[in-house]
């Protein structure tokens, strides 16, 4: 066997970590909603897609400046999610979890149709004003994509921000109380429904940011929604209601799929990238279903 190529390994590892952090950003929206409203959002990837499409359409096709396009997309996501919470999710509070899962699956289908229906189905570029020449580090020639770096940095900032928000700020504490028990927090004078809306709004904003970053990496079209499928391994590995878990889970998924793509793909003929995170997730579900940092649920009648 030839010498182990450390440079190749390191490159896979580092870019895996960066991509993993970008997954964490998407998964964060999911966790935010689950943490405070107990609702499961299967449409997180579609949120990302629709936000990306709005940025792409307004910047590339209507020639708006980037900052305006991004604010437009964020504003849309906020309004859309407030409306969504009002019309669909609020009436479903207290219904079985399967019903909420199905509602968001329906929402996902709707958004996947609505995105290209209103904005056109073509793939648009989404160019961030940064130099996309690869950055080369060290004598092993590790190539880093600057967009990966930017995405990972944005993810870390957002994750830290939300960590602070939940631990220290008054609203964040209220939100954790809501997550713990709707009834008790109502009795303590917390406006539960407003916090539900706030959670969806925050998830929408995070999705918009994710849409910009992933859109600049992959181009903007309906395929962007596939990112949403990475959310599940990330949150299951990390634990559904933990922000630390999201970071760790994201990094694990990013590294594992990058290594699989680097080492296993040549052996079995491709496709392992989409598949290994799910195998990992199944193992996790069998042995430790609440994830690395999740809170076990004790059930009573």
């Amino acid at each position, binding site marked *: 066997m030839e010498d182990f190529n450390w440079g190749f390994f390191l490159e896979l590892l580092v870019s895996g970590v960066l991509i993993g952090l970008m997954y964490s950003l998407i998964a964060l929206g999911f966790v935010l909603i689950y943490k405070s409203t107990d609702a499961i959002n299967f449409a997180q990837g579609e949120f990302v897609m629709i936000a990306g499409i709005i940025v792409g359409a307004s910047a590339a096709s209507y020639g708006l400046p980037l900052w305006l396009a991004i604010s437009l997309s964020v504003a849309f996501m906020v309004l859309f999610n407030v409306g969504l919470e009002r019309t669909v999710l609020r009436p479903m509070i207290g219904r079985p979890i399967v019903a909420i899962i199905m509602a968001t699956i329906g929402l996902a289908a*709707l958004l996947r149709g609505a995105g290209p*229906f209103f904005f056109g189905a073509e793939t648009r570029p989404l160019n961030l004003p940064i130099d996309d020449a690869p950055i080369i580090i060290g004598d092993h020639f590790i190539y880093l994509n600057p967009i990966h770096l930017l995405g990972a940095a944005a993810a870390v900032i957002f994750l830290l921000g939300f960590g602070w928000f939940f631990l220290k700020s008054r609203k964040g504490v209220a939100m954790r109380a809501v997550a713990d028990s709707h009834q008790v927090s109502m009795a303590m004078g917390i406006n539960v429904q407003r916090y539900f809306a706030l959670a969806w709004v925050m998830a929408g904003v995070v999705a918009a940011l994710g849409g910009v970053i992933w859109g600049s990496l992959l181009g903007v079209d309906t395929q962007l929604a596939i990112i949403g499928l990475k959310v599940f391994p990330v949150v299951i590995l990390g634990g559904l209601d933990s922000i630390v878990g999201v970071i760790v889970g994201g990094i694990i998924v990013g590294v594992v799929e990058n290594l699989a793509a680097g080492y296993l793909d040549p052996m079995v003929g491709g*496709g392992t990238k989409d598949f290994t995170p799910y195998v990992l997730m199944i193992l996790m*579900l069998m042995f430790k279903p609440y994830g690395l940092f999740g809170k076990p649920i004790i059930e009573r*009648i």
Partner: protein
Amino acid sequence: MFHRESGYYKTTYKGDMAFYPLPVGRWSVALVGFIFLVVIPLFLDPYYLSILCLISIAVVGALGLNILLGYTGQISIGHAAFMSVGAYTAANLITKLDWPFWLAVPSGGIMAAAVGVLVGIPSLRIKGLYLAIATLAAQFIIEWVINHTPAISGGVQASIEVPRPVVFGEAMNTEIELYYFLMAFAVIAIVATMNLVRSRVGRAFIAIRDQDIAAEIIGINVFRYKLYAFAISSFYAGVAGVLYTYYLSIANYEQFLIVVSIDYLAMVIIGGLGSVLGSVFGAIFITLLPIVIRIFMDSFGAFFFDPVILAQVTAQFRLILFGALIMFFLVVEPEGLNRLWLNIRNYFRIWPFSY
């Protein structure tokens, strides 16, 4: 108006346990049977018969999912993957070993049931969201395995051509023959499900759905019955997969992608969770939806959209309507089309003296 219960006394256990205790119920079932088995095949165009063939297949699959989701309360987003297991098992047996349909159909179902049990094993510890994600993972993993194993998928295209089924020495080549062939399976599936859900097993399923811890305390082996539910549901899915393969005369994994799983979920939800009739309604509704939209778009779409992108717009429009309908039914009418039908029936039961 005709559906009067009064005056009929159930004097035997047999009479009490009948599916349709009232003569009017029996007559209407007989009438529906007569229309579907005699009138429709005689007078309908082959194109409409082919739609009915698709509906028959969908009925089998939807009943399977309803047993799992509607009666046992276990969600599965991998229904289409189980269908593909059945389809490829049967396709290999038919082409390589030359098995007849009456062996190939059940063996496809049994193989799917075995895989279903394997996927269902984690359901002891996990439920709700976790189960949804586990079955989603199963969908991707099964898809990948089939696609990357030439021994199963039959080479590069991942598709196997299958001859039409031969019944009593006669190949089912025309639409009418296929219609009878598939309809027979749909009828068997409907009767089997109606009997299943009122048996001991079915009642255990319902107890688990309503409160699984309570079910365990009253002596139901929850794990075993959850696995039964997965096995039975996957068996139906596998059979539906085999039938679809026979119908298309080709087994191809692209017919069993995740969107198909979601179609089946939509059938069960829009039709009515935990109801046999609802599954049938849902199967009809979801199968007809794209066809109706396409006919509508073909006739009126050109007024609104560029003809070049019309096909694309039709597909997008279908997705929008589909998603909106799922959400609408979940929020407004969680019991689905079945509830609407019951409301209509109950209204006319005492009509015109509504009080």
